[in-house]
């Protein structure tokens, strides 16, 4: 498998009125195609900054970020972003929310894109809710809609910024399973930012542990748990061992 995303010695500074803050220092890692990678680290260490740099919303101060060997651009079509909350627009129906990105990119009349959107809705049991408003859906369904809204644009790399943290624990486990299944069955590469070690362990093929600010890569773990879903992976005999190793690395 080839590397889809590469961070090569990336540093990032940002300016405040008081001083210059070093957020990232020589961050170096790669994400292989179709791999599910998680970034864990102490809160405020710069995890979200890494996502913003990846999708070109910020520019790195030094080093380079490559996607498929090419430098990341400002409006990079190869990247999809999923947020902490679903951010569905309440004034739009589920269908209108899903094609929001297509509308923005003027692809909403492209039959192929629309057919793809519709197939995703059908595949993930949301088709009957097509004409409903977001408030008529449960938290888990809303998060699925948010993921489909991102997938409709067919990105090669999905950035997930703590997408489950706004959900209650039970919904969270279920949505985790759903999102994992969708990402795997659509053959997507994903980079998840989370502060929840067990969530990272249950979903990832690789976990990158970051240090506190200025963040650098402290440790990288390749994970290979048995089980088809995140929930099943939590039963793996090594789950606890890895959890403890990462926890020790974080504190």
């Amino acid at each position, binding site marked *: 498998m080839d590397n889809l995303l590469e961070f090569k010695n990336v540093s990032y500074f940002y300016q405040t009125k008081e001083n210059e803050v070093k957020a990232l220092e020589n961050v170096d890692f790669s994400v292989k195609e179709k791999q599910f990678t998680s970034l864990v680290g102490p809160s405020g260490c710069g995890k979200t900054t890494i996502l913003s740099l990846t999708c070109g919303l910020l520019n790195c101060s030094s080093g380079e970020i490559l996607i498929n060997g090419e430098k990341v651009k400002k409006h990079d079509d190869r990247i999809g972003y999923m947020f902490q909350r679903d951010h569905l627009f309440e*004034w739009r129906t589920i269908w209108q929310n899903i094609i929001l990105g297509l509308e923005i990119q003027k692809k909403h009349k492209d039959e192929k894109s629309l057919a793809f959107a519709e197939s995703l809705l059908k595949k993930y049991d949301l088709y009957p809710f097509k004409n409903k408003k977001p408030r008529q859906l449960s938290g888990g369904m809303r998060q699925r809609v948010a993921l489909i809204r991102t997938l409709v644009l067919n990105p090669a790399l999905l950035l997930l910024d703590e997408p489950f943290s706004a959900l209650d624990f039970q919904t969270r486990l279920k949505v985790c399973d759903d999102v994992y299944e969708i990402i795997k069955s659509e053959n997507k590469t994903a980079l998840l930012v989370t502060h929840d070690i067990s969530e990272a362990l249950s979903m990832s093929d690789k976990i990158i542990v970051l240090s506190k600010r200025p963040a650098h890569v402290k440790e990288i773990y390749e994970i290979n748990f048995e089980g088809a879903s995140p929930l099943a992976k939590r039963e793996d005999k090594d789950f606890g061992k890895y959890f403890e190793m990462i926890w020790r690395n974080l504190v």
Partner: protein
Amino acid sequence: MKNKKKKIINYSKARKDYLKKIRKDKVIVLFGQLAIFAIFIGLWELLAFTGVLDPFFFSSPSRIVTTIIDLAKGGNLWIHIWTSLYETLIGFALATVIGVVIAIILWWSEKLRRMMEPYLIILNSLPKIALGPMIIFWVGSGTGATIVMCILICVVLTIISMLNAFISCDSDKLLLMKSMHANKFQILFKLILPNSLPQFISVLKINVGMSWVGTIMGEYLSSKAGLGYLINYGSQILKLDIVMASITLLCILAAGMYFLVSPLEKRYKK
């Protein structure tokens, strides 16, 4: 209909009691509202009739009704009502449109917004009536001056409220739009404007009241027709019945306009 009957039969006692209580509360509130009105009018009429309140200074409900009928018979009442109504409607509409457009411009440019901030604060705290004499010099007396006064009173509030709504939009929603490569026009039309609809409706509701304030102020300043003019005229010739009759009509018109705007809110919430 059949369905409805079936449902009622299936309700538990607790559910029936609960629904009954809601209906009962609604009736009590409505009854209370009507009672307050009836007691107020009745007491006023009684006190005026018995001479406790001097009808010359306080008028009375019956005298107000008679005055309105007399004015209507004279034919001028409709001119006064129509003048005030169209001044208010034009002022209301123009202030809302101008206010929203300026708010959009200030949202668009952060630097311009920061430059304009102190002026907006000053304009907001300035009593607009102070500009009255200047308005008459600029646009002449009459309808034009009244509409300008109406706009001045509503527009600053509209700008401030709408701008606040625009800039308080969730930053992650903005990030979502940017991550989908939306340009500023798309962010405005697909996110900022629809997201601010609830605030827009509340601005409309506030502007209904404020535009009437503007109209009456404008008509006090200089006018030859309108309910404000009628109030002024009534007080000058010491016919306070005319003043009270005009105020009553104003209440009815303002309430009517408010009830025309408020269904928008319910429609949005559906």
